[in-house]
């Protein structure tokens, strides 16, 4: 019988606590299951489901990583690769369909036996895995190792090379939208390549850069070094609109105080507008709708990130006050949060989620409304590692204890001690690492998505 309480299950942990036959029972367990009791100390866990297996990358305290592979729900994990991160190569549109036997290490594809740490063997030796991009027709894979340009291949029977089609001999950049692949060739030609039919169309020549959404393509023409018009193409009709001109004086050398955004012309999320963030502080931003109409975009400071709803969040110089602005706003809204812009030396405690701004300061988690209202304490004394389980319960590690915090009541429930890290999958399954060598609970634990986390 699989016990529900960690303390009892820990007694099962020797090297691999569960036999393969236990798989179904583990997946249906009513509580935490001790999957792995390693001799070593692991402090970081990454989990990926793939084709009925679960692959774990476990990191030691002093840096090295090992890759373990378990059956469904992580059952019966075995060491797959010692000393390397070997997650399944992300070749399928749904990562759960990825083949766990094909991985990417150091930019090369490898085949793994997933048994007994057998040596990984190189596959697809003429291709690299760094920019592997899944599409409905199969993954697009970069071939060769060309300075400044790559071969592009479509491999419908990945990881087998059979039926592979070379799309481009020299491509500098590419994006995929459904079955359409857009790429820049070595002569600045912008191509649209239909992956299903193989039709390849030269859309424009003399192209500096481009971005795509499902419906539109934004591109910059290089007329000469100083004149670079910015244009927007409606992909359905082919109609093109001039939006402006890339001005090296205003837009050049964009990598400066403008925060985390590194290009001056870009789409909002999910692509309803085009934004222009000039480099020069004295120049306000501007925005355009998809018909080319110009809209105001007042920028009192440096933009940091884009939110899903189309808003821009930034920080005002001088007082480090956060602001939010949407295309068409007459003025930016100052938010109830002050935070230094992130930098390599001092990463700010700011987490900008897709739909809002959370601020993590001194162990407290705050919600900062985009309408400028007062910031609200979501949870006090939580860890940097945290995830919302639902609208009110936050799972976190605080001072080594895995706990949930009820955001409405502040009630805290401890679930396990000496916890170093956890990974929660999209389906709600939870894996957590207890780091206490010598203790029966030491190692990797699994909690099914619908199983309650018992209190200590």
């Amino acid at each position, binding site marked *: 019988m699989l016990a529900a309480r960690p303390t009892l299950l820990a007694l099962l942990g020797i090297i691999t606590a569960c036999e393969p036959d236990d798989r179904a029972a583990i997946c249906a367990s009513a509580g935490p299951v001790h999957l792995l009791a390693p001799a070593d100390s692991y402090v970081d866990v990454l989990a990926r489901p793939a084709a009925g297996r679960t692959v774990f990358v476990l990191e030691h305290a002093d840096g090295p*990583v090992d890759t373990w592979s378990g059956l469904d729900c992580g059952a019966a994990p075995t060491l797959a690769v010692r*000393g*390397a991160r070997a997650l399944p190569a992300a070749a399928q549109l749904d990562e759960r369909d990825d083949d766990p036997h094909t991985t990417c290490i150091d930019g090369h594809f490898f085949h793994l036996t997933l048994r007994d740490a057998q040596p*990984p*063997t*190189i596959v697809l*030796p003429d291709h690299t895995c760094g920019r592997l991009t899944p599409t409905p027709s199969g993954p697009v894979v970069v071939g060769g*190792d*060309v300075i400044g340009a790559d071969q592009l291949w479509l491999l419908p029977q990945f990881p087998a090379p059979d039926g592979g089609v070379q799309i481009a001999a020299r491509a500098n950049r590419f994006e995929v939208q459904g079955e359409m692949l857009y790429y820049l060739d070595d002569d600045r030609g912008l191509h649209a390549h239909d992956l299903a039919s193989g039709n390849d169309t030269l859309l424009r020549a003399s192209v500096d850069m481009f971005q795509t959404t499902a419906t539109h393509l934004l591109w910059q023409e290089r007329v000469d070094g100083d004149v670079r018009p910015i244009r927007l193409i409606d992909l359905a009709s082919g109609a093109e609109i001039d939006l402006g001109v890339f001005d090296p004086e205003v837009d050049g050398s964009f990598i400066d105080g403008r925060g985390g955004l590194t290009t001056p012309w870009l789409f909002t999320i999910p692509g309803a507008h085009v934004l222009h963030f000039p480099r020069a502080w004295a120049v306000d931003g501007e925005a355009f709708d998809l018909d080319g109409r110009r809209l105001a975009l007042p920028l009192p400071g440096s933009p940091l990130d884009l939110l899903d709803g189309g808003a821009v969040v930034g920080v005002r110089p001088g007082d480090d006050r956060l602001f939010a602005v949407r295309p068409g706003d007459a003025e930016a809204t100052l938010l109830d949060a002050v935070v230094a812009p992130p930098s390599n030396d001092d990463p700010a405690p700011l987490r900008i989620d897709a739909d809002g701004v959370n601020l993590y300061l001194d162990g407290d988690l705050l919600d900062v409304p985009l309408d400028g209202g007062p910031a609200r304490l979501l949870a006090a004394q939580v860890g940097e590692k945290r995830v919302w389980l639902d609208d009110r319960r936050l799972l976190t590690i605080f001072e080594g204890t895995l706990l949930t915090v009820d955001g409405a009541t502040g009630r805290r429930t401890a679930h396990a001690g000496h916890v170093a890290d956890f990974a929660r999958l999209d389906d709600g399954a939870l894996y957590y690492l207890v780091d206490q060598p010598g203790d029966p609970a030491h190692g990797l634990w699994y909690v099914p998505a619908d199983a309650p986390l018992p209190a200590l």
Partner: protein
Amino acid sequence: MPSPRVALPLALAGTLCAAACAEPPPFCTRTRPVQVVAFTPYYADFSVAPTAAGTLLTVYPRDGAEGYFGRACGEDPLRLPSGLRLAPARVELDPRDDDPTLACDLASSRFYRIDPTGETTPQLVLPHLQCHDAVPTPRGVLVRGHRSGGAVGLLLLFPDFPDESTARTVSRDFAGRLERRDDDLYYTERSGALQVRDLATGARRRLPGRVADFAVTATHLLWREQVDADVAPMRLRDLATGADRYLGLHHVDADASPRHWQVPAPAWHFDPTGEFVLHYPGPLDQPMTAYDLSGAQVPFPAWGLPLVEDPDGAVLVTLDGGAVVVARPGRADAPPLAVALDPNAFFSPITALGGAVELVLGEGDLYRVPLAGGAPKLLARGVGSQRFWVDERHLVTLDGDELATIHTPTGSRTQLARRVMAMRPTPDGVYYLRYSGEAGRGDGVWFLSATAFIPPPILCHGEEFCD
């Protein structure tokens, strides 16, 4: 007499032939260049590694790296399906004993098992270990944990690489600095401990002090105390008595970069004799100093640029006014070198021979200059950026894009090949990279046997790829 270093290929060839090559394969004794790998080079770079079982080549066409494995002298190379930048894994004291099926990918620094037939793709082995800085010793090879994820703390000794069952952990806290003196391995740990491990017995002892960096001779230890990353005391310890002498301060701002590119040693270091400690701060407005083994400062030119340290203890120093002197730590006099060097002019590296140096001046004039006085000797004209001695009279050089043999007594010059981008001398001969710029006409790696160097053959009359 040629320098021991530059004459090494021929000396090795002799040793090799005495041991195993009484009848070298005919391919290795052809007197004409032969193309080994055909491709259009993208870099002026390639690597070649002869082993007892074959030759591993890595070349760089535009589409990336390609590895080949051929027989002796590169004969009949087969392309290895890998996409890796392969070099033999250096785990044996004699490179010719290295297992040619164990390779090191220079891009990732991981070990691979390769199939010399090219039929199967390489296997990643011991991925938790790093291959590029393995240190062969008589007791086995020292291998570090792979840098991926910061695994720098692991140091293992493999008596029978890659058999892990017999490997011993030397340290789990290795800080990255080691030196070996016979069976004693000196190494630092991140905790600041300086450990000495007897590689034969496994016994370990910790030396006193918290040590950030060190150098060791048979009698003394030069060490930097681990107190502050910016400024730290330098001390000299008599290993017999354990007594430490304070020498001065290491300033990271001044001492992190070399004073001159020709002497890339750390700012504080032992001289080649081990009898003195020299300090070359990077900035030219800070004085150079020298110390004897009692820790006392001794005479040495304070100002100028060190150009080369000779094994006999002499140091060539360019003084402020441009004169080059032969300084010796502890001696107040520093006689001028017998040739004039323009310190502002580019000149190729000076070769120290022990009592003399070789250097190229002007438009490729190769001189040998005695350091104890005496007239410099012009050895050859038209000497290029790379050279090696075949014997006492014959020099092979890559001069511009011409590979040539120079008969130094007469100055006669024999062209061996043209349109050469790079060369790699080996005991069997020289491999060179040819680039014509004419859509691949003979482009690629070529091999020219050492037997072709002497007597210089007339190679290029009517040959297709000589010009």
